[in-house]
């Protein structure tokens, strides 16, 4: 690692002004950033830790019944505290990486990083969540802009994530056992006004919605409803672990499993 200093502000305001300086970067749980720093792929002068800010911690229920999660809340806390209010989200959080990763890694860090194989992007897009930052609110549909790319401006902090709670939902993760990320993951959520299907781990453009499956499942929420569909392999990731065709196959299998588990 190159040398840097660390600051641990206790309010969002102090963190935002510290991040306004050139060379400053946010530090969440460090479960992605620290390995990146070790590889000298990043060279911040100053890290601004967001984990000592009480306003960014914990889970609560908002006025419209949505589940609101502080941006620096760990995966372990989300898993525990949404078990009743949003079981599909709790299930997703409880299968990220391993226990020690879940004890440090945060929802804000995961969404800011937007790894193409990460789990939370699927939950946020699949739930039509709102990403709240220190300056604005961003709809999930506008937030994800491709692999490792988001709508965040430099220095902008994810302070909270708000999830409307669906009638039924489920996340199916096909684990890539070496990395513990998703080889492919599918989040299905049924709301009163329709079904959302978000796919992670598959596309060169990062998390995306499978429109055809959403339309079919909105008409008939059953695995049979998507039997006739084929997920397109165009622009899907090709690596040592799977071809685009294999990933396309997994998308459909996991979508069906998610529907069956949710129904």
């Amino acid at each position, binding site marked *: 690692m190159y040398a*840097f200093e660390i600051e641990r502000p206790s309010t969002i305001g102090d963190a935002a002004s510290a991040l306004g300086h050139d060379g400053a970067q946010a530090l969440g749980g*460090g479960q992605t950033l620290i390995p990146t720093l070790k590889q000298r792929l990043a060279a911040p002068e100053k890290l601004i830790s967001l984990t000592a800010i009480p306003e960014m911690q914990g889970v609560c229920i908002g006025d419209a019944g949505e589940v609101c999660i502080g941006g620096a809340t760990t995966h372990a806390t989300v898993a525990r505290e949404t078990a009743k209010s949003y079981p599909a989200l709790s299930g997703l959080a409880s299968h990220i990486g*391993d226990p*020690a*990763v879940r004890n440090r890694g945060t929802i804000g860090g995961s969404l800011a990083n937007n790894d193409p194989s990460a789990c939370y992007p699927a939950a946020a897009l699949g739930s039509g969540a709102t990403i709240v930052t220190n300056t604005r609110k961003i709809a999930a549909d506008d937030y994800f802009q491709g692999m490792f790319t988001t709508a965040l401006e430099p220095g902008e902090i994810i302070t909270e994530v708000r999830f409307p709670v669906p009638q039924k939902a489920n996340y199916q993760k096909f684990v890539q056992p070496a990395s513990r990320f998703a080889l492919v993951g599918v989040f299905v959520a049924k709301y009163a006004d329709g079904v959302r299907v978000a796919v992670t781990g598959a596309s060169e453009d990062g998390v995306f919605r499978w429109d055809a499956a959403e339309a079919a499942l909105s008409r008939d929420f059953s695995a049979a409803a998507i039997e006739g569909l084929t997920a397109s392999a165009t622009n899907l990731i090709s690596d040592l672990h799977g071809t685009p065709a294999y990933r396309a196959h997994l998308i459909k299998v996991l979508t069906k499993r998610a529907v069956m588990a949710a129904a």
Partner: protein
Amino acid sequence: MTQVSMTVNGKAVSGDVEGRTLLVDFLRGGLHLTGTHVGCDTSQCGACVVHVNGIAVKSCTMFASEAAGAEVRTIEGMANKDGSLSVIQAAFQEHHGLQCGFCTPGMVMSAAALLKENPKPTEHEVRAYLEGNICRCTGYHNIVKAIMAASGQDVAAIAAE
């Protein structure tokens, strides 16, 4: 350099660290507590697991300064006060839960965290909890068996010895 203070295995300690000093380097290099191992340094293997405020973390993936003011527990703090092996450590010995021993400090710390959360885990729960602890020697069966035994459950029917 800044000064960092924390409690390690019940003792107040402090030392100078850089921003980039990892907790594991502070423990091993600064405090000479070399029981905590670095297996991969890439957040994968769990050999470096310690408890920070009672929670299992990879000490290679946390900065020392982030543990300022915290209660840290390492493998050196796991034995009973009289120096005899704790229940978990004794179970690892009894059930041959180690061969070279390199992964063992992390395994014991993860096991202790699991049993605190879930005092009577199933075999499946033990295996799932050890997702982030890699052992190159034992094939895991005896580690799982040791942890089940440490939880006070009958292990006669579990995995081969």
